[in-house]
């Protein structure tokens, strides 16, 4: 095992020099002499991460973030094969010469999908595995497992079998297994993608604490930049396998504003729409900037978001359905005419109780839910991990039987579950969806061009759309469209551009007359597509109202703009900018 203790702490946690890499399946090999690098997953990447540095890796889907993380932990090229050039060192060890096993002493890696990185049967065994592999005695293992479990708030899970955990719980267990050896460098690939807003925020601040107190260097790839930008020391942005930006978070926001708007955070967008400088990296900074600007102008002192205290009247943005929409009709999120409201309802539940588990572990997951989904309605179903969101959707689809009450969807249900790959069985897209109806389904999700492709070759977003097309096939036309379309966590791993495409798709389905219910942890996405938000807490609907109402009335289940301005009904950057304009920009 490498003697890490003898290596000075001044050695960079990660040092990459002119790294280029192509996966073995790439259509063109790595060729530096000709400069033909069309198939490269990484191209001429140079990057140094100092000990104790917290860097955020930003970029769109397929920009090379995951590949870079894999290279830093040795999976690339040792496990994935392919061609590699350049140099990469982790805590002074040559990552190309050493394998992931040797690097494991210095680096912890948490992959995007926690289900793929759990190898043990019980949580305790999973967390203890790396310590056991390096031969730590039982007493050391027990203490380390206990401490990391406490740090990640999973001590109650230690005796559970991993197949009983929710996605968010699995994510935390995977992180615990990566941290238990106290590595010098932690690499995380979208660790919050399956976490609810509370757990996501807690995780980011836990990482910051580990970074500050243990001196752990962190390289974190994330699409939801608003969650972690304030915690980062530095941002590295990637575009098409190359580093396109490397600098401080504030500079990154200015760069994103001009170079890639999809990487802008809602707070930065709010400020840029309002013409306010500098762009804020987080809620606290944004509030401070707004506050000091107001003070300088000698106007309202103190917090924004206290309209009652300040006496300033706020008029919500016209997009809010409370503004100018006739009763019973909902405005289009894309600014079109209100979507039609149709009767009878797409789905209803009455006093719905559902139990899951076996034997002594049997427990109530849904407790007396009453819900009506109208046709043409777009609902975000939110709540903490394990609150019962997926179970409610599965009950609508008939996959789970209630123990009491009933769930009805008289015009049928199309459910896209969390793992779209489960729907993909054949080796050609066209074979999954034969005939005219299949082609219509493909056309609806924008995949008609991919008829000849192997579903496994599609990007994550495309696979998701294909799975949705499979669920909808034969039910896409007019009256045949299912009354309820339910999507379970569809934005995992999606960048903002892909999310916009999904918003359009949801709106199209709603316009076609389907009630669309999306279980999601992504508050910003919910604000963008939903007209109504149902918040579940421990199997009970604890809030049910318009998106503007629910997503501006809390702290965790609130958008970044809502947390900055704290104004009722203001949840998006555009609404926020309009509100600032109404109040008189500082």
């Amino acid at each position, binding site marked *: *095992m490498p003697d890490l203790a003898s290596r000075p702490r001044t050695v960079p946690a990660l040092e990459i020099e002119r790294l280029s890499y192509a996966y073995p399946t790439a259509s063109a090999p790595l060729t530096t002499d000709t400069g033909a690098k069309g198939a490269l997953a990484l191209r001429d990447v140079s990057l140094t991460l100092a000990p104790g540095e917290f860097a955020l890796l930003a970029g769109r889907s397929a920009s090379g973030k995951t590949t870079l993380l894999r290279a830093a*932990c*040795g*999976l690339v090229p*040792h*496990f994935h094969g392919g061609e590699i050039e350049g140099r990469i060192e982790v805590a002074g060890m040559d990552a190309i010469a050493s*394998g*992931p*096993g*040797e690097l*494991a*002493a210095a680096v912890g*890696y948490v*992959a995007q999908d926690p289900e*793929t*990185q*759990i*190898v*043990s*049967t*019980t949580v305790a*065994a999973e967390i203890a*595995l*790396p310590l*056991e*592999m*390096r*031969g730590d005695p039982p007493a050391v293992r027990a203490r380390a497992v206990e401490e990391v479990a406490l740090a990640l708030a999973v001590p109650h899970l230690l005796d559970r*079998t991993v*197949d009983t955990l929710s996605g968010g719980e699995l994510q935390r267990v995977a992180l615990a*297994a990566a941290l238990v050896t106290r590595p010098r460098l932690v690499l995380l690939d979208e660790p919050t993608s399956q976490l609810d807003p509370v757990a996501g925020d807690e995780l980011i601040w836990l990482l910051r604490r580990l970074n500050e107190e243990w001196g752990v260097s962190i390289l974190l790839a994330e699409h939801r930049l608003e969650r972690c930008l304030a915690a980062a020391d530095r941002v590295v942005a990637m575009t098409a396998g190359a580093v396109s930006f490397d600098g401080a978070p504030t500079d990154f926001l200015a760069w994103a504003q001009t170079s890639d708007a999809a990487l802008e955070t809602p707070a930065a967008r709010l400020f840029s729409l309002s013409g306010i400088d500098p762009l804020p990296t987080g809620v606290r900074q944004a509030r401070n900037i707004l506050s000091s600007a107001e003070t300088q102008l000698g106007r309202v002192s103190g917090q924004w978001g206290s309209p009652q205290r300040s006496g300033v009247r706020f008029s919500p943005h016209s997009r809010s359905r409370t503004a100018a929409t006739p009763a019973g009709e909902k405005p289009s999120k894309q600014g079109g005419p209100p979507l039609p409201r149709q009767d009878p309802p797409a789905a209803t539940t009455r006093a719905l109780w559902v139990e899951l588990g*076996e034997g002594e572990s049997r427990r109530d997951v849904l407790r007396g839910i009453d819900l009506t989904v109208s046709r043409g309605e777009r609902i975000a179903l939110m709540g903490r991990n394990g609150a019962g969101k997926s179970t409610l959707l*599965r009950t609508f*689809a*008939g*996959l789970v039987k209630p123990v009491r009450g009933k769930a009805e969807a008289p015009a049928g249900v*199309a*459910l*896209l*579950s969390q*793992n779209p*790959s*489960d*729907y993909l*069985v*054949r080796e050609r897209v066209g*074979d*999954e*969806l*034969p*005939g005219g*109806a*299949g082609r219509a*389904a493909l056309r609806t999700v924008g995949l008609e061009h991919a008829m000849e492709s192997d579903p496994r070759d599609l990007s994550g977003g495309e696979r998701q759309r294909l799975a949705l097309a*499979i*669920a*909808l*096939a*034969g*039910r896409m036309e007019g009256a045949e469209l299912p009354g309820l379309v339910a999507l379970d966590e569809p934005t995992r791993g999606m960048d903002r551009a892909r999310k916009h495409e999904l918003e359009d798709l949801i709106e199209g389905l709603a316009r076609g007359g389907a009630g669309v219910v999306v279980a999601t942890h992504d508050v910003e996405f919910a604000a963008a597509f939903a007209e109504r938000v149902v918040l579940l807490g421990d199997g009970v609907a604890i809030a049910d109202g318009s998106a503007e109402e629910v997503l501006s009335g809390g702290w965790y289940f609130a958008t970044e703009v809502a947390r900055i301005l704290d104004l009722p009904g203001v949840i998006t950057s555009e609404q926020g900018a309009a509100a600032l304009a109404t109040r008189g920009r500082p």
Partner: protein
Amino acid sequence: MRSPFAYTPRPGPLQAASPGAAVAYLGALVAVAFLYSSPLVLAAAGTSAVFAGCSAGAGGAVRVALRMGLTLALLIVVVNALVVGRGETVLLRLGELPLLGRVDVTAEALAAGAVIGLRAAVAMVAFAVYSACVDPDRVLRALRPFAGRSALTAALISRLVPVAAADAARLRDAARLRGPAAAPLGRAALARRLLTGSLDRAVDVAATLELRGYSLTSPDAARGGVLVSRRFKSRYDRRFYLVGVIVLVAAIVGKLVGADGFHAYPTIELGVEPATIALSVLVVLAGLAPRRRNA
């Protein structure tokens, strides 16, 4: 829903035994099934495997495996009867069939098919008991000294079935959620998808094992080549090793002294010698090994 084949931690001798002891014990029952053609001994091996599973608390796995095994056995009987023309007792003359030619269904072919089917069923039940009762974590650790440089091999051996069991329920749900115009899913397509998906997942597990340091030199091996760590031993190991060895030795001796008195062709001959009965009783009793003494 949890697969019945998924390992469930329960207190019990078979669960507490080391993977090697469990494999020796259950492997002996499978070996008997493959050594013998006597329906009596095969039925005894099957009964023993069922007893073993039920004693170990894996009744659900046994039930599903029995259903699958007997379905497979029936299929084998039918196929054997159609494709094997040997045997003197013709039960049914089906005449000329496409591809198969002239088909006469004989009692001997049916019996021979039943023997092969029973073997398969015994193997499936024994494997189901293994899958439901032997902790894959311990298998993974036990394999480390042998397959430390190949996390993929270890992952495939220890994780393929648990991963497939977990995936099967999800794939069944997804199959139910397909729209009416999506290509229909037969069992074969689903099984193929399950296998390829499980292989992919096993590769992911192997990658994680690499990251957890599985390929580093095992500390036990580094300390002097101890292949199986002391902590993996259990007080039940001796019981299962002993029962496995006794069953295997008795089966070999029985084979030598003519306890396997069954021949399907040209006419069915079933010899039930005292040795056959003794071996069958011994094999059935071996199924009680996973019982707790105070139970």
